[in-house]
């Protein structure tokens, strides 16, 4: 089973990189660009085949290492 973890900054946390990307898009002539936020994606191959157990395992990974929950949110997608 494969897990894909999306990590994004919480709303209200300033994202200077996202802001710089937004400015660059404007400079390239893209119109109508609003707020831009940058995050990261982590893909993990798991031996576990049971979706409930896999989700529980990846949630623990997120809390212990993958995300800093002071500033970041995470969303887990599972695919077999």
């Amino acid at each position, binding site marked *: 089973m494969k897990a894909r973890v999306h990590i994004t900054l919480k709303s209200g946390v300033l994202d200077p990189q996202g802001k710089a990307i937004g400015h660059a898009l404007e400079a390239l002539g893209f119109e109508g660009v609003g707020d831009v936020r940058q995050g990261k994606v982590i893909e993990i191959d798991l031996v576990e085949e049971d979706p409930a157990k896999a989700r529980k395992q990846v949630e623990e990974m997120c809390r212990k290492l993958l995300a*800093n929950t*002071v500033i970041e949110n995470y969303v887990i997608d599972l695919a077999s």
Partner: protein
Amino acid sequence: MKAAVIVFPGSNCDRDAAVALREATGKPPAMIWHRDSALPKVDLVVVPGGFSYGDYLRSGAMAARSPIMQDVIRRAKDGVPTLGICNGFQILTEAGLLPGALMRNAGLKFVCRSVSLRVENSQTFFTAGYAVNQVVQFPIAHADGNYFADDDTLDRLEGEGRVAFRYATPDGETSPEGNPNGSSRNIAGIFNAAKTVLGLMPHPERAADPMHGGTDGRIMFDAMARALG
């Protein structure tokens, strides 16, 4: 005073810290490798600056989960004085010993220069050598030094006297002009609730010898040596 300096792969201020500690205490500190699982008996633990584990995932994230840090966390919670400088500050926040997080500098650039800091609390064994509102010069060298915490946490830090230093202009104004990285409320360094743990982005150990161009940081090491025997 017997001190320990933690050494991670990618630490680069561990020897600077060791020299500053040796000069202040007359004794070389124990250098403790990140894979060790236990600290020797020490009066002070220093988590030094650098780029531990290449700053992978988040600055300080991997180091905070290394074997030695589990003992550093235990000792710090038992009251053993702990000082985190630059990457060490990032590691202490990732380890949960200090609140908040160090984010990418607001200007997105790595900033390497001397900055002015205003001393906010001199009633701790780290800062007893300074006077409140004194302006000192320490170097900074970081890309992720933008201190962030939610407003409740910031209010609590200020209310409990847990802000150690703020970035300031040379005349002590904590204005946006004096803020090199966008840190919330110009915060450069904070204490834990017991004021036995200090984390700061600027480098006192790089302002500890006349050859460094300044000695304001030496005062911190001398104060610790006096307080901790």
